[in-house]
């Protein structure tokens, strides 16, 4: 069934969108990532104008994250206090990110920088996670004792300490706020929720237990992407509600299924799967930059990207 999208002004197959939403929703529920880093390139691929894809994707992430976070609230795996600290950083970062985005736009190279951002971040994070979780799995096979986490590093020397009961942490608020800012900036530039950056940052930088990371990241993502949606809707008029509804119907159902699947998998397995997926997307984007495109010319709105 073809459906005409009022803002994107293209006609697409409704079932294709439902399917895409569902697939990305499952991944989002499993890994606690919004799925934007997968969905946004997929939307480009089926012919949605990039500006509309980025803005609408933000709206869809709100839905799938909300659905996911409810499931996590039920299991008490959301650290609200940590979530709020991250959120403060996230909102500051998102605002900064929009400024940076507009500056890059005025230079006329925003597309390239967004792509490079994707390749660099996905590549680094993906390979780090892959190596780390491979080591973790190997260790847990050798001696079934608990994996020892580094208890003390430079992060514990910073001031403004706060107790995060759910995460079992007593650390300074500076690193979580900084993580929030960094993720917020990247989220606004790359048009994603930023979960794929935040989840590893929370595990490896803040030392949070993997169990609460997913729920907390989803909690923070809802607000950051909600803020981004409003910014796009009021300044660029690029949120397509019909597209969002189709994606989120598939997405929220997928997220519920994904959250259930996630409970049956071990943390290390979950991480290694996420790492593989991140590397795969990175490789695809890198190839696009390295190989000669079949069409050297591209059309764009005047002055825009």
């Amino acid at each position, binding site marked *: 069934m073809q459906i005409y999208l009022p803002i994107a002004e293209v006609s697409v197959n409704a079932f294709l969108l439902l399917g895409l939403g569902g697939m990305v929703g499952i991944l989002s529920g499993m890994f606690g990532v919004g799925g934007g880093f997968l969905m946004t390139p997929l939307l480009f691929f089926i012919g949605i104008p990039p500006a509309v894809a980025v803005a609408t994707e933000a709206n869809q992430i709100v839905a799938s994250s909300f659905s996911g976070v409810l499931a996590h609230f039920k299991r008490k795996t959301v650290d609200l206090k940590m979530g709020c600290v991250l959120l403060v950083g996230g909102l500051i970062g998102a605002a900064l990110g929009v400024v940076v985005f507009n500056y890059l736009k005025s230079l006329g190279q925003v597309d390239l920088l967004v792509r490079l951002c994707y390749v660099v971040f996905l590549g680094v994070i993906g390979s780090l996670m892959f190596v780390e979780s491979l080591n973790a799995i190997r260790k847990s096979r050798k001696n079934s004792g608990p994996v020892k986490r580094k208890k003390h590093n430079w992060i514990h020397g910073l001031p403004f300490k706060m107790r995060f009961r759910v995460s079992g942490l007593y650390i300074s608020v500076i690193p979580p706020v900084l993580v929030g800012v960094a993720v917020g900036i990247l989220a606004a530039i790359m048009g994603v929720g930023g979960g794929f950056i935040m989840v590893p940052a929370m595990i490896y930088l803040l030392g949070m237990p993997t169990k609460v990371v997913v729920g907390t990241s989803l909690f923070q993502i809802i607000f950051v992407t909600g803020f981004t949606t*409003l910014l796009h809707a009021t300044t660029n008029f690029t949120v397509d509600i019909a597209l969002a509804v189709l994606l989120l119907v598939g997405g929220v159902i997928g997220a519920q299924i994904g959250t259930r699947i996630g409970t049956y998998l071990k943390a290390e397995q979950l991480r290694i799967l996420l790492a593989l997926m991140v590397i795969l997307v990175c490789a695809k984007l890198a190839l696009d930059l390295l190989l000669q495109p079949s069409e050297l010319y591209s059309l764009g709105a005047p002055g825009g990207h």
Partner: protein
Amino acid sequence: MLRALVLLLLTALPLSAEEVVLGLSQDKVAITATFDGSEILIFGAVKREEPIKPAPPLEVVITVSGPSEPITVRRKERRFGIWVNTDTVEVDAAPTFYAVATSASFHDTLSNVEDQRHSVSIERAIRSVGAPSSIEDSQNFTRALIRIRKDQGLYQRLEQAVQVDEQTLFRTSIKMPANLTEGEYPTRIFLTRGGEVVSQLETTIDVDKVGLERWLYDLSRQKPLIYGLMSLAIAIAAGWGASAAFRLLRQG
């Protein structure tokens, strides 16, 4: 020279011996939620007061054009091992849709001079005042624009697609793709003999969003904050709804 000019003026006058009478299968295209392109039948007849001239044969050219908008064409080049957008040309006005249908091959139907005068061919319908002086091959950018839009079905050159019967009745059908832009679509019909335009007629086809599409589009432009909040509300409601539904499913 003078005689040619007088002849030209005479043929351009509305007093020409042959005139177009036009019909359209529809003069409105409604973009609904399930819009999947449209096919418009354009037909008509030639009205004349005198016997049919035997030669040169009567030919018909029909153009349908979407609203013209400026557009940026970018070209990629290899820099430091990766493909980067380097050169940019701003095209001042390019129709978002353009179809030109002719009754014979394009060059047999319309002379180059007449094409230039009436901007009939796709190349002439695009207006590009000038590229930055750093770019020497600006016509490559215009060609790329035409190539890309042809691939999308937005630009169509339909030769021998207009059927002419007894030098009097003519008809053609033009497929409009699903990715149409809203607006007025000027539609022109030219009657030609020996490459010269003997009569022409212009009308418009309105392409409009209707119903839900219209309402959402207007809301997003006129009350963006409410539209944005509505999008968020729907997103959160859907997220909550799915969560609640799954809980019920598991309990039940």
